[in-house]
């Protein structure tokens, strides 16, 4: 018999928090990504959004088809020079605060097209500012979820202005996200864990 998490523990009550925490919590729990699948990485991104990996657990499952409704651009796939200008335009159309995940080897640095490809941008950071790089070819959905959690950490570090004239709603870039979890997961006894699912280190 497990205890319910929050039900029945409080009566009608008051919760104290700071505005900053409340706003950051709301923001990090509703990152709406833009549908930006360009190549094979898009398949993994779709897998991350589907029921097995379920990005909706992080509040990031609402893929928007319009940049104007999106907070996060997951650039999944090979960005060509022809696509570069479109990518930049879509990024400019997103409302602030906005974030970019470079997903996969091609977007991180050109990938297999780095040396002899004449058509691939050597890293999407030459086109738009990137917040989190997720390497892999393609990265597994877990890796994308990890990247998403790093974005959440970054949002958690936002400072909301306390003084007139301070940076309001501007990303504070020197605040590095601190990993908040050890990577250790306690598995219940009766659930069998396969070798490849065990978390080491």
């Amino acid at each position, binding site marked *: 018999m497990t205890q319910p998490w929050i039900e029945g523990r409080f009566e009608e009550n008051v919760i104290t928090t700071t505005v900053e925490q409340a706003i950051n919590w709301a923001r990090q729990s509703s990152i709406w990504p833009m549908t930006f699948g360009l190549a094979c990485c898009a398949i993994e991104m779709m897998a991350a959004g589907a029921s097995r990996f379920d990005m909706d657990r992080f509040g990031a499952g609402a893929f928007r088809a319009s940049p104007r409704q999106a907070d996060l651009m997951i650039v999944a796939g090979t960005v060509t*020079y*022809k696509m*570069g*200008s479109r990518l930049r335009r879509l990024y400019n159309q997103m409302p602030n605060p906005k974030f970019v995940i470079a997903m996969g080897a091609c977007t991180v640095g050109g990938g297999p097209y780095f040396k002899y490809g*004449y*058509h691939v*941008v*050597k890293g999407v950071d*030459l*086109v738009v500012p990137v917040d989190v790089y997720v390497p892999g070819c393609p990265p597994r959905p877990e890796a994308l979820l990890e990247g998403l959690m790093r974005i959440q950490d970054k949002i958690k570090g936002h400072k909301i202005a306390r003084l007139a004239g301070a940076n309001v709603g501007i990303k504070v870039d020197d605040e590095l996200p601190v990993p908040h979890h050890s990577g250790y997961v306690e598995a219940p006894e009766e659930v069998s864990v396969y070798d490849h699912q065990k978390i080491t280190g």
Partner: protein
Amino acid sequence: MMSGQAFLDRIKNEFGDKITGANLAAIDPWVEVAPEGLVEVCKYLRDQPDLRFNMLNCISGVDYFEPDPKKAAKLDWQPHLEVVYHLSSLPTKISLVLKVILPRWKGDRPGDLPEVPSVSGVWSTADWHEREVFDLVGVRFSGHPDLRRILCPEDWVGYPLRKDYEMPLEYHGIRGR
């Protein structure tokens, strides 16, 4: 079906010196055609009742060029371009390869594209194939209805699949190399 030699004799008889060479020993035997005779040869191959090459499988542009002078000295060919046409006849189930040999630049003036007459009037498939060869290898198909780049952006400079191609340093503010 006629033998390769009989076929070669027949088109040589028909077109004379427009047929500049052939290789019947290769796995895919080919016939070399002069650029100025290409369209009439293609029309003939398509319309002869016993040949009926009614399908153009693909057009390829090949750049024979070795940028390293040491390696180039050992090669048994001179730098040139080839445009290769793979033809098939669906009714008679035979296939044929035509090659057109071109200089890398027209009159050896760099920047002046070599010219081949377009066969898009013979097979309409050739339209996009020729645009692709023009885009990536840099061959001008004279008489083509709409010779624009098909894959690269329209303001792209150079022909990327040429062996001596160099990436631009910058394309619209994005670093190239």
